[in-house]
């Protein structure tokens, strides 16, 4: 089936070439990081996780978001999603590979990463995160591949894929729950120390993932002969709407608890993010942008006239995607570290090198996504044609 990927139009190859160029530049800069250490980043003693872990966290959400097409299709036999289920699964695959790459980019001693397997430590949430992320990746590769292959051969997918599909549902919830547990179980970090964190992560994931999927559906329709179907997109946009409302609602629950109880250790982080603290407020414009984007997104999805507008919808999705990205990557990580446990304010601003390395990871993910989506679209064209 992979042979499909090496046959493509000129545009296809230019796109892949562009991605490969970004990857090459980023790799060169990563080599410098590998040789000289994480000194090249904007991270510090106080803000010890930065852009890499932020993007990792967000992309775990995008990966988990794939389950929002799997559940309706496989559990509720929602036929409209038949065509896009494979897209959701392949999006999860690409996102998870990016997640793992971001983790490796963030390690101080990447050559030792197998120590996590050599000395398995069940009391560490990172150990479980590794288990569920790799498990979910494996499940999606197997399921996506087998189901697509069956479709190509116009037979039913092997029966053993069914239990794997059902298993992938709790795994999707699991990856994002455990990722939230990385943060919310730490006693000294008031911003993360809240039981709403995992539900909030999931809500924002189910907004970000499907809104990205809608954008991908538009692209697939534009560049291939395969049409994912307007009705499927419509349903997805409703899912995004509910999830986004839940995300904002959970955030306000947190804001209420923190500011009504007036616990200083919990208030200071949100104050820093939205108003600045002791004269430091690098993230203030970002956080308000995020809020405005998410609120506008909600309005544009609730009102049917806006939601059903085929020209407007992709822009709505872009807004939501950016809004949730700021909320969950920039804000969620920096917000937890600033102020530090001793109430010092050290701000975090990623370096250019750090950003380019991150772009390299994103380019790799997009490359994988392009190839996988090309496979899916071509097979669907073949079958119909």
């Amino acid at each position, binding site marked *: 089936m992979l042979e499909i990927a090496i046959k493509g139009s000129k545009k296809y190859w230019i796109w892949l070439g562009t991605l490969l160029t970004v990857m090459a530049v980023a790799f060169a800069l990563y080599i410098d990081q590998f040789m000289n250490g994480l000194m090249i980043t904007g991270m*510090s003693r106080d803000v010890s996780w930065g852009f890499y872990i932020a993007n990792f966290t967000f992309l775990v959400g995008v990966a988990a978001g794939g389950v929002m097409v799997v559940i309706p299709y496989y559990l509720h036999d929602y036929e409209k999603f038949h065509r896009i289920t494979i897209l959701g699964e392949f999006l999860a695959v690409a996102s998870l590979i990016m997640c793992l790459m971001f983790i490796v980019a963030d390690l101080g001693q990447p050559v030792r990463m197998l120590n996590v397997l050599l000395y398995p430590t069940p009391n560490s949430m990172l150990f479980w995160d590794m288990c569920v992320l790799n498990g979910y990746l494996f499940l999606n590769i197997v399921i996506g591949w087998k189901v697509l292959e069956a479709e190509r051969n116009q037979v039913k997918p092997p029966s053993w894929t069914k239990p794997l599909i059902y298993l992938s549902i709790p795994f999707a919830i699991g990856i994002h729950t455990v990722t939230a547990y990385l943060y919310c179980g730490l006693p000294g970090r008031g911003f993360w120390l809240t039981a709403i964190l995992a539900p909030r992560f999931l809500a924002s994931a189910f907004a970000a993932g499907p809104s990205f999927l809608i954008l991908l559906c538009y692209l697939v329709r534009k560049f291939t002969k395969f049409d994912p179907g307007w009705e499927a997109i419509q349903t997805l946009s409703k899912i995004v709407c509910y999830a986004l409302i839940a995300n904002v609602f959970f955030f306000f629950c947190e804001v209420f608890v923190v500011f009504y109880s007036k616990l200083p250790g919990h208030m200071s982080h949100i104050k820093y993010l939205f108003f600045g603290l002791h004269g430091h407020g690098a993230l203030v414009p970002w956080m308000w942008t995020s809020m405005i984007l998410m609120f506008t997104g909600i309005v544009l999805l609730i009102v049917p006239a806006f939601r059903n507008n085929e020209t407007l919808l992709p822009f709505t999705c872009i807004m939501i995607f950016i809004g949730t990205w700021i909320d969950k990557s920039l804000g969620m990580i920096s917000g937890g570290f600033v102020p530090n446990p001793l109430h010092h304010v050290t701000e975090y601003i990623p370096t250019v090198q750090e950003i380019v390395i991150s772009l390299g990871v994103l380019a790799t993910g997009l490359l994988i996504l392009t190839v996988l989506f090309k496979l899916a679209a071509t097979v669907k064209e073949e079958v119909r044609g």
Partner: protein
Amino acid sequence: MINKGENFLSKSNRRGFLKAAGISAVAIGAAPAIKAVSAVASGGEATNLPVKTAKIEALTAKRWGMVIDTSKITDEVVESVVAACRNTHNIPDFDHKPDEKKYPNIRPAKKMQEIEWIWEEHYHNAFPEMEDEFLADKFKSLPFLVTCNHCKNAPCVQACPTKATFKREDGIVIMDFHRCIGCRFCMAACPYGSRSFNFRDARPFIEKINPEFPVRSKGVVEKCNLCAERLERGLQPACVEASEGAIVVGDLEDPESEVRAILKENYAIRRKQELGTEPSVYYIM
């Protein structure tokens, strides 16, 4: 894969180390002590090794603890304590100008990426929950020394995915620098900001390397180890020696110990007690 940073010593000092090691091996005349020291470095359970030799009596405890008498901490004491710790453990000083010949084209160090094992803080930073607008003036300006608390319930130990950070039977929370993958989960977990990450090779910023303690490679986390390597050799921690009586370490579980005697007589507080981490460092107010 050979990791350059893993080199125990820089070349220029290796000879010095071998000499020192040779002499001490002769002096001790016994392998167990060396084994014990190397076990500490590699993260083994050094406490269980037979370290009793004729010449060296290791200092041991059921649970090590520290008492800091805040009234005895002056700016001079702080300075000498921090310097003693730095020199003992090869902690880089980012204000130190690297030797141009030995380390050409060194990129400038970022102060915010520095490494601290024990350092000075104000009261309201060391005890942020106890901030009080009517706090006695003397406390507002008093220098406080903060370090790893060697918590009974250490969040960093719980967070570490490779057991590179672990708790010894004697209560010391210690690290295996060779196992650490540099994920920095422990840094997020520590509620005291006591951990530092080697964002870069430390060597150019160490004025004089102490051959008796490893220089860490880039990419690993580190923190106070309560001078476990010195306790093994019957020596008090470097900070205690330099503190002019302001810092005392001892066995918290032993009712006859000096630390317990001090705690019996004085009102002492611990940092962020409400978190339940059970710090082993006490501050006499």
